[in-house]
């Protein structure tokens, strides 16, 4: 398929996704609120930019990132590759023989999260609302570390085969404890940052990694064990964002004491 044909296809698909939202927005605006939108033209141009940007973004991912990312996920989880690094062994593979998989999971989780458009949006809003006290980059890096930890832990879980709900419940317990000690201001934002991490960039790559692992590790089912990585990626950012705020608070306290 030619480049322009592909671009037209993806743009149409994006428009189709946006139509329900536009109908609801303008339906309520004209039917219920019944007031003219300030700078209507600017808003409409903004929508066009969003659709165009998203379509280009998806097209680029489809052309560049996903094929190579999926290929790498397959190659890294290939038992032959893993055996080449672990050395010849008659025994089955042990969990730590998969160390490149964990490193890849960590690195790809962190780097795709930095580029996640919805996280950029929330970080911009949080920065604006907090009057600059929450840095755009601070939040994005905290979330990226959370996703990275979540995905590498999730990959380890698929290899070892421990039940998924142990990890999720343990994560919840940490979140609940942190909630009582973290600065009040950060708590809702931290909860939100769990949901924003997993959209356009992260999910397809992470899903490929999970499925690749579940297919090659003996005794795992792609259908049951391949899932769950996304859940890990949305739980751990909550913990790291609260930790980020706690560390920031601790630092200001300490600098006050030394003054």
């Amino acid at each position, binding site marked *: 398929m030619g480049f322009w044909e592909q671009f037209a296809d993806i743009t149409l*698909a994006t428009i189709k*996704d946006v139509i*329900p*939202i536009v109908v*609801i927005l303008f339906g*309520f605006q004209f039917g219920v609120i019944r007031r003219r*939108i*300030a*700078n209507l033209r600017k808003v409409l*141009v*903004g929508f066009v*930019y*969003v659709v*165009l*940007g*998203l*379509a280009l*973004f*998806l*097209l*680029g991912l489809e*052309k*560049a*990132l996903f094929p190579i*990312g999926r290929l*790498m996920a397959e*190659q890294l989880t290939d038992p032959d590759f893993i055996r080449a690094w672990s050395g010849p062994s008659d025994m089955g593979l042990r969990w730590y023989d998969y160390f*490149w998989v964990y490193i*890849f999971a960590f690195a790809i989780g962190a*780097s*795709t999260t930095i*580029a996640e*458009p*919805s996280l*950029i*949006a929330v970080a*911009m*809003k949080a920065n604006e*609302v907090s009057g600059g006290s929450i840095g755009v980059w601070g939040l994005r890096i905290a979330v990226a570390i959370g996703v990275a930890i979540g995905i590498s832990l999730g990959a380890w879980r698929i290899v070892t085969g421990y039940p*998924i*709900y142990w990890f999720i*419940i343990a994560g919840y317990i940490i979140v609940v404890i942190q909630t009582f000690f973290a600065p009040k*201001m950060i*708590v809702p*934002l931290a*909860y*939100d940052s*769990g*949901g*924003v*991490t997993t*959209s356009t960039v992260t*999910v397809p790559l992470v899903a490929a990694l999970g499925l690749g692992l579940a297919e090659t590790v003996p005794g795992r089912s792609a259908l*049951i064990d391949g899932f*769950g*990585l*996304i*859940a890990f*990626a*949305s739980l751990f950012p909550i913990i790291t964002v609260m930790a980020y705020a706690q560390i920031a608070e601790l630092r200001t306290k300490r600098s006050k004491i030394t003054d």
Partner: protein
Amino acid sequence: MLGSLRDLAPIVLVIAFFQLVVLQQPIPDFFNLLVGFLCVVAGLTFFIYGLEMGLFPIGGSMAYEFARKGSLFWLLLFAFALGVGTTVAEPALIAVAAEAAQVAAAGGMIAMEPQAQLEYASGLRYTVAFSVGFAIVLGVLRILKGWPIQYIIIGGYLLVVIMTFFAPKEIIGIAYDSGGVTTSTITVPLVTALGVGLASSIKGRNPMIDGFGLIAFASLSPMIFVMAYGMLM
């Protein structure tokens, strides 16, 4: 443009490192890769530009108008419609629902026939869409009343944990994942602007404490509803 380049640099580094150093293979199809990368950079730049021109202002101004109008019914209806409307057509959700139907069929919960799977998948989709609508309504009510978020979220977690022990094993992974897939790239900025806008236009609400949290509700409630769906079907 420069910002987008910087945002994408880590991915390029990670892929290059693993491809060249770890896997020790050449980069395939370099030209397509470069074109794709330029598209991603341009796309991200446009998206962020459009965000500040279109999505943020309209989300904020509608929140302000609803707060000024003071009609609870229309605001909640709007919240529900936004939640359902943005979720029901979400491509990621359609994909997950189809896979979930396969899992259910393989686990013997429903018949192996395509018809039964199709019904199961669309039932699941509507369940998730309804749950997101419900979550946004609950989240908007929370902002209006100023309820503290942690009790609702912790209560939700407790429910998830309890249901995990009773839900069929096959559905648990999907239920956990379904929370993450519901919040798309266009929904997130819009819903965030709505929440922050509402909290800033109502007296006594702090946009930082009360404005965020809608996304958290929208990612938690599908887990509960999907497990319930798995238990009932």
